[in-house]
């Protein structure tokens, strides 16, 4: 039924590479051992104790580090074409590599939007040129992201798109969502939804609750997201296909996804962002109206945060995605009520997850790697997320022990909009290999 998924054409490293002395953790193979890893011809060529290095091989010393399948972020905004003042594909993939990611899926709300092969190809070309990480373009669901007619999914798929989403905005029309879910099945790709009923959001700028009341800011009720997810899951039951809820934020969303999976709705998947796992709406008050706490969906209450963590632990939530959304400092340096929504994520996700999930005892390391690598690969339908023989030579090195202090001014991203500046976290990404080549960050 589906065309062969076009795997992303990416520069492949020449010399073989042997990674020695690291702790290899590959959840796809249930592996957690001190073994060597051989990469050759752009793929994983072998795993074992004391591998013989072939002639001309590069030796990489990974002692003290964890070696895992390259991390994949299924939700980032690279802002190119058209918004290069916020980020470019070059700076965005540099940020990805610095943050430990070997691949990212980038959203379509650029200028112009990615609703055709031309923009899809542009993105791939730029990513190839930069050479820091793989980029899998996500095309729009609707033409021009106008929410009315289906976009040319087939054309985009042939050019290299791996999924479709109008993210930035919701696919509001239920009939359009129905048709998209049906049509996307020709290509066996997921429809990703930014769930938000704009009429319920109204003029809301933060979570509707005790803090919005105290601060005098308009609130976004949970129902704004919940009603769309509930509706879409009912549609999914009728249509079949694959449906992925982006950036979960409410208790009810977790319940709806749990319920859907229990009832056997296999095509339903979802993701959560680190900021929703580790911050609440109180951050808006505590930070004195900092616009680095303004995003959609908003930071919600402690009860929501706990439900998201529980959903992650029990497996209802399939993967972690950063929703990296750069904005130029001038754009964010305005009154809270009028600031654009969104914060960075590529260069904070790994440290946050290692410190607040692994070291905090919430989830074991293998599971976190699964959520950041194996699971996104499966949802996007791309190779990777595994170090099985023959899989792409994409590797991430993790340093579990080093304490870092997040310094936004040291970010590779062009932008600086993060609420995590100054946070002291234990654990960091320590390098990446893409296509068998060690990524060298300037």
């Amino acid at each position, binding site marked *: 039924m589906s065309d062969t998924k076009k795997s992303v054409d990416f520069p492949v490293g020449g010399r073989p590479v042997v990674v020695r002395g690291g702790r290899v953790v590959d959840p796809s193979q249930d592996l957690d051992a001190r073994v060597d890893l051989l990469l050759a011809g752009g793929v994983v060529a072998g795993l074992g104790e004391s591998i013989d290095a072939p002639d001309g091989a590069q030796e990489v010393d990974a002692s003290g580090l964890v070696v895992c399948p390259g991390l994949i972020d299924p939700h980032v905004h690279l802002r190119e074409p058209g918004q290069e003042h916020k980020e470019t594909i070059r700076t965005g993939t540099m940020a990805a590599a610095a943050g430990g990611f070997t691949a990212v899926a980038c959203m379509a709300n650029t200028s112009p939007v990615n609703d055709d092969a031309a923009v899809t190809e542009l993105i791939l070309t730029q990513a190839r040129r930069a050479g820091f990480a793989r980029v899998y373009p996500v095309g729009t669901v609707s033409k021009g992201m106008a929410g009315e007619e289906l976009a040319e999914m087939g054309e985009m798929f042939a050019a290299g798109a791996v999924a479709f989403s109008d993210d930035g905005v919701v696919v509001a029309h239920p009939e359009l969502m129905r048709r998209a879910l049906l049509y996307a099945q020709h290509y066996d790709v997921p429809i990703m939804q930014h769930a938000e009923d704009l009429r319920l959001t109204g*003029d809301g700028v933060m979570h509707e609750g005790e803090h919005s*009341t105290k601060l*005098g*800011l308009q609130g976004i009720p949970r129902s704004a997201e919940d009603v769309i997810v509930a509706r879409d899951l009912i549609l999914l039951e009728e249509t079949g296909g694959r449906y992925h809820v982006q950036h979960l934020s409410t208790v009810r969303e977790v319940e709806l996804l749990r319920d859907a999976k229990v009832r056997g709705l296999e095509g339903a998947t979802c993701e959560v962002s680190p900021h929703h796992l580790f911050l609440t709406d109180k951050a808006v008050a505590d930070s004195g*109206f900092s616009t680095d706490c303004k995003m959609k969906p908003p930071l919600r209450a402690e009860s929501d945060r706990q439900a998201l963590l529980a959903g992650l632990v029990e497996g209802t939530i399939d993967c972690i995605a950063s929703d990296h959304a750069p904005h130029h400092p001038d754009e964010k340096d*305005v009154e809270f*009520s*009028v600031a654009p929504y969104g914060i960075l994520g590529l260069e904070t996700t790994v440290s946050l997850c290692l410190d607040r999930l692994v070291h905090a005892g919430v989830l074991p390391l293998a599971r976190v790697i699964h959520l950041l690598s194996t699971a996104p690969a499966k949802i996007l339908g791309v190779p990777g997320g595994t170090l099985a023989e023959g899989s792409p030579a994409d590797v991430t090195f993790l340093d579990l022990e080093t304490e870092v202090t997040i310094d936004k001014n040291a970010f590779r991203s062009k932008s600086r909009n993060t609420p995590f500046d100054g946070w002291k976290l234990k654990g960091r990404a320590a390098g990446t290999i893409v296509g068998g080549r060690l990524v060298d960050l300037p």
Partner: protein
Amino acid sequence: MAPAAETRSAAAWTRKDLLGIAELSADEIRTILDTAESFREVAERPIKKVPTLRGKTVVNLFFESSTRTRSSFEIAEKRLSADGLNFSASTSALTKGESLVDTALNLQAMAPDLIVIRHAYPGAPHMLARRLKAGVINAGDGAHEHPTQALLDAFTIRQRKGKIEGLEVSIVGDIEHSRVVRSNIHLLRKLGARVTVAAPRTLMPVDVESMGVRAVHSIDEAIDGADVVMMLRIQLERQGRMAFPSTREYFNLFGLTSERMARAKEGVIVMHPGPMNRGVEIASDVADGPFSVILEQVANGVAVRMAVLYLLSGVRSEDGGEG
């Protein structure tokens, strides 16, 4: 000269800015109110001026138009001999399209001592305070806070009732969109009063009890046993949507009339931050009646604002800092 002990009160004022009541201690609030007592007397002299802020520049930055609050600040500034500069949304002095940050930096170049700002968005005064050396006084930021209003309300209550602790205060009206109510809730609670807010369900914000108040949906319940009844101005049309079907219905359901006043405690006072909608939230005979202290609020507003200007002008800071 008086000995050192006499010149310092329990809480000397050390904040660069007055951005809200939420962050103030009860002692700091009392310092402002006590200082305002002394300034009330200036209005009774033949020459209503003291040289205290002579040579100081105060900028009045009113992004939202307001006759009442702005003129109150202007009079306060003049009585302190300060030089006041007015920038309002209606004059071309505030460049259209200029970001708040740029406006602030341009102002900084003029080296004002104090800035009084009223803005439609919560947090705008805080943005200025972080960037500017000048002290920033919040004259109302969206629906967030209006600290000088709450202070003059408290001053008026204290003047009429002798104290605030233990009083039952009811605030009635559009609670959701009111900055006056938020500042008042913080202040009254810090000084030990009990606060009830009353609004129709469509105008009551979510989780308002988390601010430590009793929330009711009936004006009768709110007036029952109240020492102070504070009425808020009702604006029925907001962003093209009606929160209430008509002013007539609002008045019938939530208007303050003399019949309803019978439920209040003996010695009750009626307050309103102004401007009033007679016949919508408050009947004329109550507004002009024996319980009303509405005009005293206005008079006290000048004294309270003089006190705030005086206290803030004494705080020096090397760079912009959180007040």
